[in-house]
């Protein structure tokens, strides 16, 4: 792999009058102990669009994603500086109720991680904890979210079966349903299809494309075809630096930065 200059960057400006920004970061830096993992990442995420974060292993794309809903708070050695702006509020600030914030910024992880509860309880568990008790509303929520996640037809007769009996792809769609049951504004997905077979992957992708109507989606992916298929914008990460942010079409046809060009054409990574 060549050494690329971290100064050669390109960021497509998004005109705030035409593009509603759901989430943005300003000079976000992430440290794990003495290891500087993310350098001054400034990105904007447009509402009701899918933004893909791509880059080689170790480029920091997952680390960046996990700091957006402050999942890095749980790692004792991690430190995140800079601003994460959500609704005119810096959610990386000190006074932020992270539990409340995570209701608005949901997350789906790399490995499907359903609770070892029934399908029904997986979806209703968190809303119940947050105070929703009405059985009818809960039933409706289960049906609506499972339909949105394209799982309803397969499980509607087994809602009280264990979620662990589902296949990997079904589990991941259940995790998506569980995340959207919270009615978040933003959905973060950390390589949601990397543990799945091709058929499950394409189902998850179709689900995401449908979800774009109601949610702002930020997805980390290893798979460039996947980014090209489903995303509107793409950000390219390299060794902790964001080198390019552009529409997905531009990134994959006429990238502005040499490193992006080499990565999307398969020269490294």
């Amino acid at each position, binding site marked *: 792999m060549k050494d690329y200059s971290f100064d050669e960057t390109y960021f497509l400006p998004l005109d705030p009058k035409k593009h509603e920004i759901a989430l943005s970061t300003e000079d976000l830096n992430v440290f794990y102990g003495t290891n500087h993992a993310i350098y001054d990442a400034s990105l904007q995420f447009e509402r009701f669009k899918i933004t893909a974060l791509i880059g080689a292993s170790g480029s920091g794309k997952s680390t960046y994603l996990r700091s957006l809903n402050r999942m890095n708070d749980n790692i004792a050695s991690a430190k995140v500086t800079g601003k994460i702006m959500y609704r005119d509020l810096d959610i990386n600030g000190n006074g932020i109720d992270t539990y409340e914030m995570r209701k608005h910024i949901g997350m789906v*992880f790399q490995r499907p991680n359903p609770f*070892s509860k029934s399908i029904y309880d997986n979806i209703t568990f968190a809303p119940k904890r947050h105070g929703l008790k009405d059985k009818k509303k809960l039933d409706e929520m289960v049906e609506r979210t499972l339909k949105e996640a394209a799982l309803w037809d397969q499980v509607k007769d087994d809602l009280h079966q264990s979620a662990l009996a589902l296949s990997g792809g079904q589990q991941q769609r259940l995790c998506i349903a569980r995340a959207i049951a919270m009615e978040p504004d933003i959905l973060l997905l950390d390589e949601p299809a990397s543990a799945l077979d091709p058929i499950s992957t394409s189902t998850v992708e179709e689900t995401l494309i449908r979800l774009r109507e109601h949610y702002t989606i930020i997805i980390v992916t290893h798979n460039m075809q996947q980014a090209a298929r489903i995303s509107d914008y793409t950000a390219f990460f390299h060794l902790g630096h964001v080198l390019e942010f552009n529409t997905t079409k531009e990134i994959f046809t006429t990238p502005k930065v040499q490193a992006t060009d080499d990565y999307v054409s398969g020269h490294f990574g």
Partner: protein
Amino acid sequence: MNAKQSDKVATGVLYLMSGTIVAILALLLLYILWNGIPHISWHFLTAPAQSFEKGGGIGVQLFNSFYLLILSMLISTPISICAGIYLSEYAKPNRLTSIIRTSIEILSSLPSVVVGLFGFLVFAVQAGFGFSILSGALALTVFNLPLLTRNVEDSLQSVSFTQREAGLALGLSRWETVIHVILPEALPGIITGMILSAGRVFGEAAALIYTAGQSAPPLDFTNWNPFYIASPLNPMRPAETLAVHIWKINSEGIIPDAKAVSSGASAMLIIAVLLFNVLARYLGNKMYKKFTGV
């Protein structure tokens, strides 16, 4: 010798070793049961012990063993669950935590007779509980707590980290995640560990000789008021357990049928411990199925 042969030899040696262990255990069990079971009868299991004559039973001792066990589990279970949750979920990797962990390790390797003498000095003498079920239960708690805590911590740790992330990402607090997601998943392991440790506590003698005492005054099974002196539930009465009884009749017993009583009592003890183990497996599997539905 080529790889295939050496593998065969190694496998053979391992089989032999495991076979030896199983054989020793089986012989021991068969010997005890063979000698003991003929002496077990309804009369033997319910009658009070005799001091000088033959024909005594182990009724009171059997009851004492169970009562002591329940009492000590009642004390140690909540403490060990809280300590285990703290160590597994909340403790930061710092000096204090490592001191706590080291203390637990040391405590778990203390010989039970030392725990017994400690219990005698602290609970029986200093605290003034005398030779009593309460002193015994507290001594057993000291003996049992480190292992139980370790068991709870290990069971919680065996639940995948991704489950914690799942809970947090849904806006649940760490406490909610631990109580409603992690603990239920760890419960089968915790219950199995609890029952196995109950078996160990049930057979414990050395820690009880100087705490619960070596005498079994007759009990009045018609009066269950815990404040009545001969009540079975009175926690302040001395209470010789089955294991202590076996030790005592073998070391200083003067009853003519000492050997028979000791064999019968030993068989009873072994049967109880075996039952605990079977129950632990059964309940562990059943709960795992119930909680995971697989």
